[in-house]
């Protein structure tokens, strides 16, 4: 928060042993982020994509572009429901930006919250405030260049392009010695006027389309002599759209999500600690916008509870179990409205020196007549020259009942595609996907200010469900249609790697950089097509500098290679290249500068995104990003 930011100019470097990438809330704000999902483009090695230009999806290079997105999202260690029909949307969580301490991105397989996955884990940690009462408020708005201005009235006039709308947030926190409570409110509006998407949005939402989001958030924490407990209640309403490939366009939806969560930790003896959490999320989607569009009506309720024992000594370092129950309701009853799953898991440390001992972890999931298994073995070697080498081997066999994408629900009887008249088919039978993975990571801490990392990975995927589409352009609504199939049983192998560095030559400046690579080694046509939709290379550099207290500068540069979307090949021919199946490579430079005033009580930030004016888009049918200016004004007390 502001007060904390003004305490000095030192920046927090990544910890020495971290094999997670951590982005602090302060960095997110310095980079010009105004919503939680803005953290995704800041992750150095996670390719991102967006259709609307406002909501981001991401997966690690070794993760999955397949159906469904399997990225695991945690808030303070609790698993939360951040996806809708398999589409990751962090903003539906309704977490105020000012409440975020850090967001960790985990790609390497390890036991986290009772899950072992190489599909990416996003672990959001909220702030535990300092004693006292504080309040904050901020407002951000901006504009993208390229509107015709007065030339709209001349023969050369053109259409307006995207305007950003606004983001506004306010909240208050009170913390005493042993407890705290906070309340926050966020609201935002997005105006989709980009010519690449405007026609579809007008067809879905009416002549003046708006994407609106409002969220309320309450958090509380209690710390006794030895125990600590957290409570959170959030409610988010999003008036947005849903893009589903078989529909070939967006449909307007109003989504309401309410989440209540408890979590705690209590010591059991001197060497053990008991962790527990319970989370319930209720989501309801109702139609919005034009009457003639497909109507999405859908309700879900998810409850997940977990109990975990952690030992500081002994071979059994972690043991626990978790229960998950998911209920869905649609206008036409689905065949399996309730899915219950139980997972038992444990982690063994096979040696006395915990930092370097081999670690083995496994999680066994059962329910609805299926059994899933995930296991990982890892070891860390300390090498000469203060470097370490970590190796990981993992196996995952997912439970099909845990799939919550639109195709899984279609197979369970949800008739959205049938009712919309979409051309689709399902080929094969859903079975839990299977993955074998290997990772090697070498890291070197050269002095206190330089960190180097090199890594490589291998992923072997089998029994995947992959969407196969060949879309055709429908000029009337600027939309697409075509046969779309979900094909079960695809598979292939992926290899990749990368290098990273972090340099903090002075305490007020951190420079980070990375290069990553991931490409299929072998696989069937569908696997290769799905992988081609993710860039194979990327280079990412960020610089965060606080030269004097109260003045903050952020500079980031990203280059990512082109991606190819086979589904849009017919569209490219039909539209004469207006929509292209290849999303071109792009070099993107972002800049932000913030000045704090009145001992940090007020702040103003100006940010420019895509400063170089690269031809930037992330999806063949998605929005384009011209250079954009964003201004943010914030206030905090005391």
């Amino acid at each position: 928060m502001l007060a904390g930011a003004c305490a000095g100019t030192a920046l927090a470097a990544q910890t020495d042993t971290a094999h997670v990438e951590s982005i602090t809330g302060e960095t997110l704000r310095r980079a010009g982020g105004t919503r939680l999902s803005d953290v995704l483009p800041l992750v150095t090695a996670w390719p991102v994509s967006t259709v609307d230009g406002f909501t981001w999806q991401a997966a690690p290079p070794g993760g999955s572009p397949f159906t469904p997105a399997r990225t695991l999202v945690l808030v303070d260690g609790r698993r939360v429901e951040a996806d809708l029909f398999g589409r990751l949307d962090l903003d539906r969580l309704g977490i105020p930006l000012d409440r975020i301490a850090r967001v960790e991105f985990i790609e390497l397989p390890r036991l986290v919250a009772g899950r072992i996955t190489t599909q990416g884990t996003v672990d959001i940690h909220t702030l535990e405030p300092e004693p006292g009462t504080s309040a904050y408020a901020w407002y951000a708005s901006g504009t993208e260049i390229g509107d015709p201005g007065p030339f709209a009235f001349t023969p050369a006039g053109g259409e307006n392009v995207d305007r950003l709308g606004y983001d506004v947030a306010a909240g208050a926190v009170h913390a005493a010695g042993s407890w705290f409570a906070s309340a926050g409110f966020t609201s935002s509006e997005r105006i989709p006027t980009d010519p690449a998407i405007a026609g579809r949005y007008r067809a879905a939402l009416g002549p003046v389309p708006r994407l609106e989001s409002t969220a309320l958030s309450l958090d509380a924490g209690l710390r006794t002599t030895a125990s600590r407990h957290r409570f959170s209640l959030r409610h988010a309403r999003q008036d947005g759209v849903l893009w589903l490939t078989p529909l070939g366009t967006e449909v307007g939806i109003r989504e309401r999500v309410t989440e209540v969560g408890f979590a705690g930790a209590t010591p059991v003896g001197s060497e053990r600690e008991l962790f527990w959490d319970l989370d319930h999320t209720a989501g309801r989607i109702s139609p919005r916008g034009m009457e003639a569009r497909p109507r999405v009506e859908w309700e879900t309720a998810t409850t997940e509870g977990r109990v975990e024992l952690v030992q500081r000594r002994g071979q059994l370092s972690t043991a626990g179990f978790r229960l998950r129950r998911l209920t869905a309701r649609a206008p036409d009853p689905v065949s399996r409205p309730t899915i219950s799953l139980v997972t038992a898991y444990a982690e063994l440390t096979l040696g006395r020196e915990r930092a370097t001992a081999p670690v083995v972890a496994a999680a066994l999931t059962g329910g609805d007549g299926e059994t899933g298994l995930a296991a990982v073995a890892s070891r860390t070697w300390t090498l000469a020259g203060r470097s370490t080498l970590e190796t990981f081997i993992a196996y995952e066999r997912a439970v099909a009942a845990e799939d919550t994408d639109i195709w899984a629900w279609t197979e369970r009887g949800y008739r959205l595609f049938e009712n919309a008249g979409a051309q689709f088919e399902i080929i094969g039978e859903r079975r839990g996907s299977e993955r074998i993975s290997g990772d090697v990571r070498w890291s070197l801490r050269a002095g206190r200010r330089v960190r180097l990392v090199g890594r490589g990975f291998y992923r072997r995927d089998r029994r995947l469900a992959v969407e196969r589409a060949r879309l055709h352009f429908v000029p009337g609504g600027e939309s697409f249609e075509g046969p779309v199939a979900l094909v079960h049983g695809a598979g292939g192998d992926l290899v990749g790697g990368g290098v990273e560095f972090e340099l903090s030559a002075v305490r007020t400046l951190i420079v980070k950089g990375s290069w990553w690579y991931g490409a299929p080694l072998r696989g069937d046509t569908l696997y290769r097509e799905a992988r081609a939709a993710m860039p194979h290379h990327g280079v990412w550099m960020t610089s965060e500098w606080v030269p004097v207290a109260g003045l903050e500068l952020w500079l980031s540069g990203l280059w990512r290679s082109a991606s190819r979307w086979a589904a849009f090949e017919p569209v490219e021919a039909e539209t004469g290249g207006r929509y292209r199946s290849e999303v071109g490579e792009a070099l993107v430079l972002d800049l932000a500068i913030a000045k704090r005033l009145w001992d940090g009580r007020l702040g103003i930030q100006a940010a420019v995104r895509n400063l170089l004016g690269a031809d930037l888009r992330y999806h063949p049918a998605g929005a384009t990003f011209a250079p954009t200016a964003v201004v943010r004004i914030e206030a905090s007390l005391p």
Partner: protein
Amino acid sequence: MKALHTSSLAAVRYRSAPARWRRLVPALLCVLVAPAPTATAQQRPAPFETLDLSIELLADIQQARLQRHWSPGPALGLGLAFPFYLGNIELGVQLSRPSARQVSLPDFSSLFVYVGWSGTRKLGRRLQAQAGLRAGIVGLSFDVDTIPAFRQYEREPAVTARGGLRWTPRDTWFTEAAVAWHSVFTEPRIEQIFLSAGVGRRFRTPTWLRDFLD
């Protein structure tokens, strides 16, 4: 509603964007930021120690696309400048009201709200050169009521590169003459070259304001 398009406009050959200005301004900035042999460290005020308040009148001498359709008229600028950790930081507004050259086009008002940075170099005891960059948002308000309200107002990012001379005949009062290249990121761009003259006064920043800013 008036017809929005006029087809009988004579073809006009435009000069390309003033590339020489784009090259000249970075060069000027480099010269100004470089250590000046005549400037001593103790002469430079501390950050936010002083406040320069100025008013200037600007005339657009560019002949380009905007000027073909609108007479830009004079512009009025109001600015504040403070010494910063390096160079000076500027805040200000610039107001103009272009009038249409054809009846089919609306007049409009333009308000440029900016933040800038500039470097200075002493050329003598009372004369100094300055150059800098300003960036901000231009708000445009069109005098037309036959289109939806949200189309009557528009805002676009804009930048200005500016170089000038300041003469300080007395300790607190100064006059300025400057030339500035101003570009608004519409499509196509609005490009203007302003000649300006103005007066201003230097104040010691009140303590409360200095505490607020620093």
